[in-house]
């Protein structure tokens, strides 16, 4: 298993840099996705620290109101569009072809194109800081706030933001086309749809969401661009336009985008929990249908972000939003009963997976509050909502990403990561995360609005804000053991071997890191756990 007979055509000498920049290998592209995403994670994290330092106590200490608007806008933009979404696409890129026994993605060169659009878009966003200020209308960029008018978004920052997001969207769409063609056409013999690893299923559903939803935000961005630059009046009520139109088209993408940001992370922990519980995933098919259900329902709930506009039909969108909790609940049941009476090994990947479970549960429950229209009227645009999205996207997605990183790092590099450092990082991050975001529930209930740089010292929000700031620095501090861990593991980590976790899926049937085109030969695929079958004597005689 550890070697391969397949090599690309006789290599002339090329520098490593040239090799990586021009590669079409899904594994190298996947790793570059991950690295690029981490860079923007740290950049977005610095901006988040800017927010927390400003809010640590009442008054304006370090930034002006306008700068504060830029800081939280770019924090969300980096984290959503250049960290979580591409990070999961990166893991998908690396893992999906391996898990279905394919030599590469269906369109390797388009895959490279998808990757390289991301740093380009990121560069545009960073440049916007030096061209008179970045976008500052929030990551939602509602009209009229994002329009080119006094008290709106004057200057090129907003336009650069629109162009960058259109690029990122195009990258996502091409990536989704690639994933779907790969999953539908490139599966190894025996790898039927219902033998695919859950990770592949979640990437499949995610890709459908990206394919159907992302073009719609592209249309919204283009309308905004026309309004801003060519005298259009899509969102201008003075000329017959409608600002609510923007919100509808924007959320038609941006709600499904939430599932784009969580489903692959769910797929990751669904790979990890069975391996570290020494049991198969409980209710494989139920999990698949729940994933598809979340994807389908995801298109019918966008207007729950717009309850307070008075322009949407509240009972329908409230009901559909509550319905999302049903397939999500099915998944919680799957995960818990996968671990139930399993032989748990508390390695770092499992710790992060369990962290995902518990934190995402809170994120699900505090989100359901907002699904109830009367409650939403009270907590709309307060810190409750900030708490909710961070419990989902940090407690969920980031914990899932960390779990996936520790789980697949040995496959990607051939080296194990350090367990002790991993556990230290987990504890720091877990405490820091809850210290930052749990108080925000209380702040939201106490009426603190989101997106403000200053607040009254007599509002009673001082202590909780200070606690959140301390937590924010704890999260930042928890990145140090991670970076050190990656550094020393790359340099002198324990060699991993093909299958360090005794895992179930095909990526562990090849060497670590896998050779170009991945497989010399594949084990027989007769269930969703081909390696388990091979290890435990159910393999066919040859």
């Amino acid at each position, binding site marked *: 298993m550890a070697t391969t007979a*397949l090599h*690309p*055509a006789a290599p002339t000498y090329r520098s490593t840099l040239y090799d990586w920049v021009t590669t079409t290998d899904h594994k190298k592209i996947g790793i570059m996705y991950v690295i690029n995403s981490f860079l923007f994670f740290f950049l977005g994290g610095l901006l988040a620290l800017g927010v927390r330092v400003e809010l640590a106590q009442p008054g304006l200490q370090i930034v002006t109101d306008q700068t504060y608007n830029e800081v939280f806008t770019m924090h969300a933009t980096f984290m959503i569009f250049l960290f979580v979404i591409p990070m999961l696409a990166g893991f998908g890129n690396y893992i999906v072809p391996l898990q279905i026994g*394919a*030599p*590469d993605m*269906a*369109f*390797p060169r*388009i895959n490279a194109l998808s990757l390289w659009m991301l740093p380009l878009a990121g560069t545009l966003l960073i440049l916007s800081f030096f061209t008179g200020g970045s976008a500052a209308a929030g990551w939602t960029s509602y009209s009229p706030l994002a329009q080119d008018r006094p008290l709106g978004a004057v200057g090129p920052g907003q336009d650069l933001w629109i162009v960058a997001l259109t690029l990122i969207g195009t990258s996502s*769409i*091409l990536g*989704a*086309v*690639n994933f*779907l*063609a790969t999953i*539908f*056409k*490139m599966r190894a*013999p025996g790898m039927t749809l219902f033998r695919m690893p859950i990770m592949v299923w979640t990437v499949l559903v995610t890709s459908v969401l990206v*394919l*159907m*939803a*992302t*073009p*719609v*935000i*592209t*249309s*919204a961005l*283009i*309308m905004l661009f*026309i*309004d801003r630059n*060519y*005298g*259009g*009046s*899509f969102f201008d009520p003075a*000329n*017959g*336009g*409608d600002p609510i*139109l923007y919100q*509808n*088209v924007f959320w*038609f993408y941006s709600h499904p985008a939430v599932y784009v940001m969580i489903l692959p992370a769910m797929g990751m922990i669904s790979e990890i929990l069975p391996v570290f519980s020494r049991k198969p995933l409980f209710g494989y098919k139920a999990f698949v249908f729940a994933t598809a259900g979340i994807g389908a329902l995801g298109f019918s709930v966008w207007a729950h972000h717009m309850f307070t506009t008075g322009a949407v039909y509240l009972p329908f969108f409230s009901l559909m939003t509550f319905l999302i909790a049903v397939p999500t609940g099915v998944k919680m049941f799957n995960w818990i009963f996968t671990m139930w009476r399993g032989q748990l090994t508390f390695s770092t990947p499992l710790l992060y997976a369990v962290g995902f479970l518990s934190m995402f549960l809170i994120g699900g429950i505090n989100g359901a509050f907002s699904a109830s229209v009367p409650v939403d009227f009270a907590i709309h645009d307060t810190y409750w909502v900030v708490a909710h999205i961070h419990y989902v996207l940090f407690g969920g997605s980031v914990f899932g990403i960390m779990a996936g990183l520790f789980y697949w790092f040995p496959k990607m590099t051939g080296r194990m990561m350090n367990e002790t450092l991993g556990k230290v990082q987990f504890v720091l991050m877990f405490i820091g995360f809850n210290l930052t975001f749990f108080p925000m529930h209380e702040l939201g209930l106490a009426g603190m609005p989101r997106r403000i740089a200053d607040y009254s010292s007599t509002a009673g929000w001082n202590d909780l804000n200070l606690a959140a700031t301390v937590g924010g620095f704890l999260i930042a501090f928890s990145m140090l053991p991670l970076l050190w861990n990656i550094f020393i593991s790359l340099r002198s980590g324990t060699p991993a071997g093909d299958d360090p976790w005794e895992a179930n899926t095909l990526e562990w049937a090849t060497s670590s890191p896998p050779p170009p*085109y991945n497989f010399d*030969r*594949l084990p027989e695929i007769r269930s969703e756990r081909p390696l388990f079958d091979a290890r435990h004597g159910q393999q066919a005689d*040859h």
Partner: protein
Amino acid sequence: MASDTHALATVEHSPVGSLAHDTRGGISNPVLGMLLFITSEVMFFAGLFAAYFNVRAAAPQWPPVNPETGEAFHLAILPLVGPATVILILSSFTCQMAVWAIRRDDRVGFIRAIAVTFTIGVVFLLMQAADYILLAEEGITLSAGTFGTTYFTLTGFHGAHVFGGAIMLGVVLYRGMAGQFSARHHDAVEAASLYWHFVDVVWILLFSLLYLLPGK
């Protein structure tokens, strides 16, 4: 195991070469990729169409009054838009004839039909540009309220897609004249023709919406 090794060993040039076509038959990767891409394009236009219906439904009267002339906006089917519509629909037929020709290995017929399709695409774009000039003279521009904004955004993005499709057809024509397509290998032709049909269907919807649907 022996069969697996054999399957890989038959590949001559690249280990992934054979996988561009699913050996079990069915739709080829490039054609599936194009269909998926068209799906995303449908959703892009759905967003723009939704915007059109939104402003139209909210307007007290449609088409609204042109502030320059004091009369309701009017879009003329003649002299340009009607003929342009007819030839664009015809081009879908010539495009399909090209596909059928190359499936029969009739390269001459294929090149002829693709050349006609490509030419029609270019003529359509020229007619659209001329129509834009006529409209601008009547005061219908991108900045003339929601009517002009939606009209030029919808038709403009359609025109951009015709442009993209014409580039694809140009590449297909060039490659066809270089002899790169045969009855066995012509995925690019199939994919480009699917895209061209899509562009045509979008125009039929747009034409019905903008020119045929009665005002209110």
